[in-house]
């Protein structure tokens, strides 16, 4: 069979022309299925190397834990104090960086919320270990939760929705602007001497302006094309 577009003769193995991509089809010709040149879908296995790295990194993260625990018990104040902070930080870093490497194709929609959960857990630990103002429930948790929701939503939409990136990022920026307002409000109720002076309105207005501009570009095609013409690299 010959390619209808470029005219090259196609081997029986070809469903499309390898030169121009045109699908090989002729209404009067029945093609016999031929053996492919290479076995389709059989990819080399790269998991072995990845697994070795994952094990090595896990060992690297695990090694300091008994050392700091022993040092803290032996030389520090009675009970576990500073070692808890170190161990918590190591565990948080591990969840964020090494845990996804154990999986062949880690899905960020799962691992991004997991990372925020680890950060939240670490902040709770800090609040628990460092006695003083109780800031976790009224400040750290809502702020971390808010950032987690926005970032996870962006990651999920970017992964599963093929178009509309301008709307996704525009919406995320507007949401971040709203979060600024929330942060200032939470700071005033958690840390009493601080008063509400409305500084958050400045980042809010900036985020809303940029986010709104992105959404406008998403809606208005001529404006989008103008921006592409002016700013292409």
């Amino acid at each position: 069979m010959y390619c209808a577009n470029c005219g090259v003769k196609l081997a029986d193995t070809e469903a499309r022309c390898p030169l121009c991509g045109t699908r090989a089809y002729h209404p009067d010709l029945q093609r016999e299925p031929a053996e492919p040149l290479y076995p389709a879908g059989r990819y080399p296995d790269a998991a072995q190397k990845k697994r070795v790295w994952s094990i090595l990194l896990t060992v690297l993260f695990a090694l300091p834990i008994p050392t700091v625990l022993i040092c803290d018990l032996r030389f520090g104040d009675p009970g576990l104090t500073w070692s808890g902070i170190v161990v918590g930080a190591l565990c948080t870093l591990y969840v964020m960086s090494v845990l996804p490497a154990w999986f062949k194709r880690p899905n960020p929609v799962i691992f991004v919320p997991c990372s925020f959960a680890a950060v939240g857990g670490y902040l709770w630990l800090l609040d628990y270990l460092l006695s003083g103002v109780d800031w976790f429930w009224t400040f750290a948790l809502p702020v971390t939760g808010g950032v987690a929701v926005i970032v996870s939503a962006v990651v999920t939409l970017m992964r599963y929705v093929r178009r509309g990136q301008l709307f996704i990022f525009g919406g995320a920026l507007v949401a971040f602007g709203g979060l600024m307002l929330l942060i200032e409000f939470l700071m005033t109720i958690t840390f009493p001497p601080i008063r509400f002076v409305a500084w958050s309105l400045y980042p809010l207005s900036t985020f809303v302006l940029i986010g709104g501009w992105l959404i406008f570009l998403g809606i208005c095609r001529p404006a989008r094309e103008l921006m592409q013409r002016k700013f292409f690299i």
Partner: protein
Amino acid sequence: MRSPFSKQPPPLHWMPLDNAAKIYPAARRPNWTNVYRLSADLSEPVDVPTLQSALGTVVRRFPSMAARLRRGVFWYYLQELSAPPTVREEACYPLTYMSKAEARRCALRVIVYKNRVAVEIFHSLTDGNGALVFLKTLLAEYLERRYGVTVPATHGVLDRHDRPAPEELEDSFQKYSGALPASRREHTAWHLSGTPEQGAFLNLTCLHLPADATLAKAHEYGVSVTALLCAVMMMALQRWQAEVVPLRKKRKPVRVLIPVNLRRLYGSRTLRNFVMYTTPEILPQLGDYEFEEICRIVKSQMGLDITPKQMSMKIAVNVNSERLMAVRVMPLFIKNIVMKIIFNTVGECKSCLSLSNLGMVQLPEEMRPYVRRFDFILGVQASAPYNCGVLAYDNTIYVNFIRNICESPLERHFYEVLRELGLPVTAESNQREEDDDVLRELRR
């Protein structure tokens, strides 16, 4: 001397890398090694246990090829394998990445897929001509065991039961280095580029041409088949560049690297690397070239370069650098950094791609009924996305393009030039279908 009563096995051969081989381990990247493939399609499906036992016999004849790459303090070296490599299964694309760990275990792969036997070799072991001798000898041993035919040691097939001759293991670059070095100064060539392919996949496109018609066409233009194919390639590159760089003064030189087998030039019998190169060039900034004009340029450039004296000057550049005392005493890790910088600045960037032609593959008459086809596939370059390997067998020329980008403009232009010359072309490939699960996953 080793005692005849010693129960210890004989020490394994080791040898320093030859002059050309030294650059390849240093130039390696996390996703790229200089590996190439030679394959033969047989008339019947390959019997893997028979091939494995044939491989066990043949590897002893080729200690420089059935080898692993080891690190010394100052240089890399090759060490003969204690056992033959295991025959492997084919993946969905050729020349999958050879990691450092794999080259340390064995820098040679033998792969089977249905009727096809393929060898993939790290370039530090040997060049295409050496690998072709290995593949033919392996096939001869396999056919003897499988079908009981007696294959004579002719046409590049070696006697499997002989011991390797010292001249087969020599570094011929040292022997034929000239008194004067050539200059390294060359223009930087046009850098080919495209959308990177997902998941390290390599696209292979094989074009089949009738050898007799191509030879007649080459004679019509007064050039060899290699020069004709090089001219076609340069014409295709010129057209592609004109498409993507419309402003003429911004265009870059089009240069194709053609490896030259030095064994014929110097009468060497080495089975290690012994190739140099010539790089015909056109300057599209000056205007569009006609096909006849490119043929004349390629012919004259090859005629000037491919002489023993000229090649000895090119050899001398690399051999002199290697012999410098300051270089020799430099620890390997520093040497690797320096060689990588040299490779990046004066290596690949001086040509658009390689066009390596192994010529017409000859086989003993006893083997011919069992072998249907040969293929020669180069790996892509470290930074450029294309390469092209050519050989001819049984009145067909197989032109194998490999690329790690999605688009195929070079193959298309190459075919168009061939069509204009009146040569019939058949195309086949390993392109992925849309229903490939991994492809769908990667595109998310």
